[in-house]
């Protein structure tokens, strides 16, 4: 003992860290990845691995160029890469996937200041840019258990509108790599809720709104929540800490907004799917939701300011 250390309280900290949070998210994404590998074969695993790898490489390159400390250790880049891969068709060429991760990591995240400063979900932006740039490759939906030598494609259930509920629930249907199996995504979502990584506010509000809204306009509500990207979007994208509101009330508003926009795009726009756009749009209004859903402090007294002075 030479000198005693003096530091402000508290002197103990919980063992939860940012990288542990991200690890839990990766674990929660694994059931959907396994389902995808079973349904679409090894290329699903290859594409996901490739996206994670490029995302981490872009992040590290940005750190080096911008002279920032190495941030790949927090695993957020790996999560972004994985989520982006889940939003891609399994047949997408690797170079296109690399462009997607570049947009996600470099343009959406690092140029805005890195983790915690991005205004929109990087994976969502990556997917939207790819969809607008390569519409054909991004809607090349292969049938489940396909043969790599003779690829057969089919429209997604949202376009065809004739898939069985069981196929949609298990994921034996056409669609993006990670979004097809509602069951696997729900398992991941439950894991995150149980581990207290996310709260169920936004997913329930999102999925519930899609269900009710579809029912109200005369569509099949169950079909709408099982088909397409609603499960993936609601459980893993609408719960992204950085780009969604911070209070429970705000999260519910966020989920409802996402649900309504998704349905409006699906039913009345030319695009077949609207989950990514809805989340992006709600990401943009997140600061405003935060502003209007500030928590009231315990014992807070509202003062009628300035009014008294005017009355005199």
């Amino acid at each position: 003992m030479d000198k005693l250390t003096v530091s402000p309280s508290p002197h103990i900290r919980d063992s939860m860290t940012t990288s542990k949070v991200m690890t839990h998210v990766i674990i929660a994404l694994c059931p959907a990845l396994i389902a995808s590998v079973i349904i679409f074969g090894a290329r699903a695993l290859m594409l996901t691995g490739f996206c994670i790898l490029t995302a981490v490489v872009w992040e590290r390159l940005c750190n080096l160029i911008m002279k920032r400390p190495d941030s790949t250790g927090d695993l957020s880049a790996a999560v972004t890469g994985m989520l982006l891969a889940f939003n891609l068709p399994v047949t997408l060429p690797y170079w296109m996937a690399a462009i997607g991760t570049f947009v996600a990591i470099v343009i959406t995240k690092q140029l805005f200041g890195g983790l915690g400063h991005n205004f929109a979900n990087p994976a969502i932006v990556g997917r939207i840019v790819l969809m607008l740039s390569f519409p054909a490759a991004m809607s090349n939906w292969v049938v489940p258990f396909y043969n790599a030598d003779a690829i057969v494609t089919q429209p997604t259930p949202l376009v065809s509108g004739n898939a069985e509920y069981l196929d949609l629930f298990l994921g034996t249907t056409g669609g993006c790599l990670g979004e097809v199996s509602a069951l696997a995504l729900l398992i991941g979502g439950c894991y995150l809720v149980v581990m207290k990584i996310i709260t169920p506010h936004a997913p329930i509000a999102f999925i519930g709104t899609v269900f009710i809204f579809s029912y109200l306009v005369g569509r099949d509500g169950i079909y709408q929540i099982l088909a397409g990207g609603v499960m993936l979007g609601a459980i893993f994208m609408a719960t992204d800490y950085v780009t969604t509101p911070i209070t429970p009330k705000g999260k519910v508003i966020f989920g409802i907004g996402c649900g309504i926009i998704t349905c409006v795009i699906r039913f009345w726009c030319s695009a077949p799917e609207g989950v990514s756009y809805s989340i992006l749009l709600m990401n943009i209004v997140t600061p405003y939701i935060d502003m209007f859903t500030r928590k009231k402090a315990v014992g807070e007294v509202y003062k009628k300011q300035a009014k008294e002075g005017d009355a005199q």
Partner: protein
Amino acid sequence: MRLNGIILPHKKGTENAETVAVPCPETVKISMSQHMGAPCRPVVKVGDRVTVGQKIGDCDTYMSCPIHSSVSGEVTAISDMLLANGKSCKAVEIACDGLQTVCEEISPPTVTDKASLVKAVRESGCCGLGGAGFPTHVKLDYDESKNKIDSLVINAAECEPYITSDYREMIENADGVINGIKTIKNLLGIEHVYIGIEVNKPKAIALFEEKLAGEEGYTVLRLKEAYPQGAEKVIAFNATGRIVTEGTLPSDHGILVMNVSTVGFINSYLETGMPLIERRITIDGDAVKKPCNLKVPIGMKLSEVLKIADTDIEQIHKLISGGPMMGVCVYDIDTPVCKTNNAFLALKKQGKLKKLWWHESAHTNCIRCGRCIEACPLGLMPTELEKAYDRKDRDALNKLKIDLCINCGSCSYVCPAKRSLAEKNQLAKGFAMSK
């Protein structure tokens, strides 16, 4: 409605350690500022002989309380000492003669009503023994015409990890505490008493329920183990369901909150007339080989106290006065013990205990996970407060109610990015108050 709280590891390893009185030290250094409020002036001179319980410091200011000698001996010096908050005050140094002669003036006070109780409590040098050190007589001296106090809340939550001194008070001095509660209840005419104990102390709950069985107007509350259960506003709410609103005191809502050790001491003072000259202190931490509860005379050097607990002094990296959540770091191992101390934790460097981090790891960007907001017992938004402070936005800080922060440290504890939110809140509070 329910107030937020966080689950902490208890680490109450000393809960079964019976209190041991330490032998009389050779010298003591008694600080003249041991309570909240104005510091005392020494009323003795160098060379004076003092006895146990003799008044050695006093002050005319209302918000203050006198200080007494814990030993008998000769005053050797009146020096300046630096306090943890950066201010300095006088300190009386006494060389002990080892005889522990008791002052002749010591006799039980006559207490018949509220005014005489307030006067007696002031003379006893009693201040809140929970840690803040608010002079107890000021608390008791509320304006009866304005506030009708109907609830007395005895704070025995002891929600900080490690500390067990209040628990030992309840176990070892249960009759004294209950007697003290009854005296205060009767003198102040309070209708109902709530004794708030966290459920991790089943023995204390059982003991108090047994002793108060069949008596009207007493409730033993089983409080959830949720830090900061012992914070004044939190325990007042959990006991009575009344919210202590911004800018008011519990007494404005008819509530009087007192620490269990304070009540125990008041009872012993009323019985013997011996002022506050010693304290039960928990000594724990991973550098302490024999964690224990000690009865320490005020003014004893901390290094001597630590030696009694067989502490590996060379290994100490951080010495905390109080609990690990709100405790203050001690910078000098020879700091004297004062009235408000209830525990000292001697921690080794970089100890990573199960599920807890000691060391100050580097912080990363806020990921807006909202854990701090979920943790704050007063419903504040620590991450927003931090951002508002960083951009020096005084209006936003006031809007976010920075003045309500009680510095419990829950926000920093839960932060996965390891940001120093509690520290920022304290800085922000000072900044928002400054004009």
